[in-house]
């Protein structure tokens, strides 16, 4: 092959790659496109997403929408309404896997009519220690009038993270900066980045955080949870809001049509000691504890629908689906209504 032919072929290949890359960007825009996130400067959360950006998810669930002017997934922009209930949660409540109107916050708003307005500042990877670390800033920034909701999917907490949260040394969840952040805005590169992370996760040795598989809560665990909850109690009292922690476990199917209740991966009955300790500490610190287990089980027994998982994932695994958000919204609505009546 002559040198000229090689150059010509390389030019053709370059053009081909550019065209295909452009087509793949178009495809990725609708296939898996969550806006880039950056540090939240008011510290109410670790990060927030680009505001007013289109998002799409077809990798887990099929959903489209856009973030609001505050960079979170809410139906209304920040400032359109006063906030009565502030929702702090993880990627489960971030709700990029469902339509914005199907999220817990949106469904609560519909259930309450004009009485209460719920605003979600949930985002990926936030757990109770992060909520505690960010709570004061969140309460100052969003000024909820009545309630603050904390979504948890695990009652187990990594001791180091809990202690760091209590000592105010918990590191911020990282956000891309500079060129990396700019590259995140290219849809196909973002898809490839996710794919690469999945591949790395596959190669990595799994580590288990949390319990040491004993059914009795350790002193360390109790002290950590007690410390975190005490902070919640103090801050909520200071800002005159009622804290509610709602626990949403996962369900997995058995061949006899029954289901297992899982705390992420661990059967809940194997860590009942931790669970009991968690619940009693909530009571001690005047935090309303809402356990979604019975509601999820009742819904499964009636409809054979699990609260997690989608038509493109394993049943019962992953993030909350629309049904899961609905069940949670209805239970939270009932809890808040009941409290209003008894008050």
């Amino acid at each position, binding site marked *: *092959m002559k040198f000229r032919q090689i150059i010509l*072929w390389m030019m*053709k*290949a370059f*053009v*081909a*790659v550019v*065209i*295909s*890359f452009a*087509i*793949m960007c178009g*495809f*990725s825009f609708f*296939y898996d496109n969550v806006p880039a996130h950056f540090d939240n400067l008011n510290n109410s959360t670790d990060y927030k997403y680009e505001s007013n950006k289109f998002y799409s998810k077809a990798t887990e669930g*099929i959903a489209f929408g856009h973030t609001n002017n505050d960079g979170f997934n809410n139906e209304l922009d920040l400032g359109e309404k006063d906030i009565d209930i502030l929702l702090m949660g993880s990627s489960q409540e971030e709700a990029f896997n469902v339509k914005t109107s199907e999220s817990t916050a949106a469904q609560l708003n519909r259930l309450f009519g004009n009485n209460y307005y719920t605003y979600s500042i949930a985002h990926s990877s936030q757990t109770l220690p992060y909520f505690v670390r960010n709570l004061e800033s969140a309460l100052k920034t969003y000024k909820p009038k009545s309630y603050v909701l904390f979504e948890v999917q695990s009652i187990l907490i990594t001791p180091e993270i809990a202690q760091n949260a209590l000592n105010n040394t918990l590191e911020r969840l990282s956000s891309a900066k500079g060129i990396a952040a700019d590259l995140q805005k290219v849809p*196909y590169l973002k*898809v*490839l980045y996710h*794919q690469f992370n*999945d*591949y790395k*996760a*596959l190669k990595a040795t799994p580590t288990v955080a949390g319990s040491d598989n004993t059914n009795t809560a350790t002193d360390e665990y109790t002290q950590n949870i007690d410390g975190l909850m005490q902070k919640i109690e103090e801050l909520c009292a200071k800002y005159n809001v009622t804290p509610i922690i709602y626990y949403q476990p996962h369900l997995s*199917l*058995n*061949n*006899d*049509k029954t289901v297992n209740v899982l705390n992420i991966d661990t059967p809940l009955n194997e860590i009942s000691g931790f669970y009991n300790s968690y619940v009693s500490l909530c009571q001690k610190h005047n935090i309303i504890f809402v356990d979604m287990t019975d509601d999820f089980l009742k819904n499964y027994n009636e409809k*054979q*629908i*699990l609260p997690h998982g989608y*038509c*493109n*994932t*394993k*049943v019962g695994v992953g993030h909350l689906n629309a049904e899961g958000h609905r069940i949670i919204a209805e239970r939270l609505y009932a809890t808040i209504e009941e409290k209003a009546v008894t008050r």
Partner: protein
Amino acid sequence: MSFSSLEYIIFFGIVLVVMAISNALKSKCKIETVQQIRHVFLLIMSYIFYGWADMKFCFLMLALTIVSYVTSLIVAKRDKYEKAATVLGVVTPLVILGIFKYFNFFVDSFAQLLHTSSSVTLSLVLPVGISFYTFQSLSYTIDVKRGKIEAQKDFINLALYISFFPQLVAGPIVKAEDFIPQLHEDRSVSLKNLEKGLQIFVLGLFKKIVIADRLSIFVDEVFETPSAFSALTVVLAVISYSIQIYFDFSGYSDMAIGSAKCLGFDLRRNFNFPYISKNVSEFWKRWHISLSSWLMEYLYIPLGGNRKGVARTYINLVITMLLGGLWHGASWTFVAWGLFHGIGLCVHKLYKKIRKLPKDYKGSTIPNIISTVCTYIFVCFGWIFFRAESFANAWDVFRAMFTLQGGVQHYYIWTFVAIAVVIVRFVSVTLRNKKANEALTTDSYIYLPLDKTWGLTLFSLFIMLTAALAYFSSNPFIYFRF
């Protein structure tokens, strides 16, 4: 090392570069010398490939190769040791296969039969690909004995035939008469080979990491707890499995064929749209062609084939399929799968005999469509035994489907995507073949012209799409365990 891993891409890149460099030696050395260097290099790389996870199995393969080499040379001399050497050359691979794959299975089965616990089980790890390379070694000795091929005097050539890495761990099972002559030709990396080989490889990669691996999520879940799902969901899971195993295995075969093609070697196709078969006999001419033709040539025909009367023909068919089932794995569910297909073949033969249908009977459109659907359903029922962990598990799947049980409804979207991919691929190849006035059996690959911008665009688009849609799981190729 799996074809769908990053390690393999790097490994294969190194092999390609060295093989391409070897072309430059042709102007300086004799072609025979260049070939010898290439073969030694490929042999070393094949052993590295095989020993990537565990080096000790390389010694097993080497020992088997030495036995095949020595016995076939003795057989070729046609002297008084011929019979003994043949027996040794045939029995050795079978014994190795028997010990590693079936010893514990049979000991456990006998113990269960006698209601005792077995105390003589061996703690052996099944070497990857043992079923494939033992069969190649076996057929080589038999072919030398039959005089179909000459015994290899060059040990490197024989060792490379048995260990050639593209087809080593999951086939296709290559016959010595197809492969060894290629070692005597000037075969190496060329642009023409690369153009075709890479396209075949990427097609196989797409089948495996996009379709088969994604389907495995749904299939594994439903087969783990079939009683928890609705009848329709279980039916969809069975359909999904039929596509998963087809794309998993044919994907692997494509990657093997593509890798070999890049290096200048031709391996025969292993699949030919099996789900358009109009009967079970046709299915076995289209599914895992290298295994079915191996079983036909080295088992069914030596058993007597159809030359010893009607009853013996049916018995031979059932024995062949039973052993074919057992070849897939040391489990009674595989035996049941083989038996199921054996009975299916007998019934089809009997039907042809009663209807007095000629061998080249083609039939009309509507009956052909009905036959194709019925054959597909039959094959899917067989897959239930093949996939199930136990008979109890298979029974749960059948019960779920036939009692129209209620339960969790899960309509997995990738099942429908996979069905669409199967249809699109079949239609595109059929149209291409019609246009080219070729029979469907000639070539199932559609090659893009990589010297043209539009061809390069489509190819790079396909690679990018595969990277975007790939499902990264720890799902090894289904046929690795065989």
